[in-house]
């Protein structure tokens, strides 16, 4: 199982910064998981007990807004990592996620990976170094969308 997961994870660039040993340790906590189009991957408020590396398909991050239903915040495609609330207490999802199209992923056991990080600081640091850019890039992208660059000066700030 781990070897199969290892070969699939190695095909994607996301975890390329890990040493072969670290990659094996990570993949011991991983299993393939697939979702049908429209299937919910996790719901807002649920325990963040896993995180996913998307191999193919796309997922939508959403938030339930009273009166507006499930608002899609962002979509993620193949090669991206889904979920970072598992890194910090209270380990609860701040957003929900659903498969936009059929989603093929490797799902990792969050608690197992966290325990590995605590036990092996070098591994822990390597994992954090990979997740930091994800968070900063998503923040930058969100800030760009806040700027509402496609709006005319009359439209800026209007819905």
């Amino acid at each position, binding site marked *: 199982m781990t070897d199969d997961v290892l070969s699939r994870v190695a095909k994607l660039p996301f975890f390329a910064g890990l040493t072969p040993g670290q990659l094996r340790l990570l993949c011991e906590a991983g299993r393939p998981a697939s979702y049908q189009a429209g299937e919910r991957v996790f719901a807002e408020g649920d325990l963040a007990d896993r995180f996913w590396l998307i191999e193919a398909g796309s997922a939508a991050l959403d938030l339930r807004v009273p009166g507006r239903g499930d608002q899609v915040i962002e979509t993620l495609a193949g090669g991206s990592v889904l979920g970072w609330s598992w890194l910090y207490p209270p380990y609860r999802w701040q957003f929900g996620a659903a498969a936009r199209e059929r989603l093929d992923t490797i799902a990792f056991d969050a608690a197992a990976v966290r325990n590995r990080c605590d036990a092996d600081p070098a591994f822990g640091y390597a994992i954090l170094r990979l997740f930091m850019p994800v968070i900063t890039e998503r923040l930058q992208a969100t800030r760009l969308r806040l700027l509402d660059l496609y709006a*005319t*000066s*009359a439209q*800026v700030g209007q819905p």
Partner: protein
Amino acid sequence: MSTETRGEFPPPVLIEAAALARLFDALHARGYTVVGPTARDGAIVVAELESAAELPYGVGVDTEAGRYRLRARDDQAAFGHSAGPQSWKSVLHPARAPLWSADRAADGTVIVREPVEHHRYALLGVRPCDLAAIGILDRVLTGGRHVDPVYAGRRDGNLIIAVECTEPGATCFCASMGTGPHAGSGFDLAMTELLNGDDHSFLVRVGTPAGAEVLAEVPARPADDAAIAQASGAVAEAATRMGRTMPAQGLPDLLTASRESPHWDDVASRCLTCGNCTMVCPTCFCTTTEDVTDLTGDHAERWRRWDSCFDLDFSYLHGGSVRTSGQARYRQWISHKLGTWHEQFGSSGCVGCGRCIAWCPTGIDITQEVAALSLLQMASDATDNGEER
């Protein structure tokens, strides 16, 4: 149009100052509108002249940074003054000009008409710095792919009578810009004023056949060696008495390197962004357009007027301006004039006339700003070199 001076023209002659009246007659007889300097409203301005009597005989100027006053000379020199608030762009690139008018017929077709320039201008009293400025405007407005019709129309058939300078003003620095005080080429006739006691005459050099043809109607005598030596000596000596100097080399690189210089804050604390400098500068050419219509909407016109990069709306784009701060606008003006002009038009945009220094209400001196930027750059290079060791 004037062309390069040729060696095969008649040798220089001397004409009496009184003969300038005959020069005017010759020009009028050929249908020229004569434009030259005259004293009016406390300044020496560029205006249409009916006769030689309107030249500013005996009027001198007292200029410095932020200062320009007329004063009485103790002689009757007609050209004993340095650059006034106007330049030849008042004639060749006027402050307001119609570009076209359009009329819409009942079936919706639109006929567009371009105005035709009927005057032929004789420019009398063009200083070497202003001669260089005309050459620069020629390149900007007619040297590119598209020819500016207003400028081309007014420039077509010009007769240029240059006058060399023997008394530089305090703000002049043509010598360091390589544009004067000697007139080398680009004129039909070039005059150097000579005053020896009661004797008031002009040494006249011919630059083109058109110039020679006009000069032939003015009573003249061959210039003797003494007169020629006096003229060239006075001009050469003037080159050593310039009020200011500008390091004319390396400015494009200096200004590019200075884009983030702390010096712009310093200038911004003094610059009112009033745009005087752009109005008096003989090479500032920026314009904007205004479309107007009558009440029926069937007749429309486009007019062109001077604009200034100091104007807040100059760089307006998508709801706001790109250059809103005073620093950015001053930086744009000086970096264009002395720096990027080279890449855009193949020469410096500055001719060293010193008008911007005289007409700046706070006395900002373009030569001093360059010196300051230069010092800061050398200091920063020295620090870099120090760090490398």
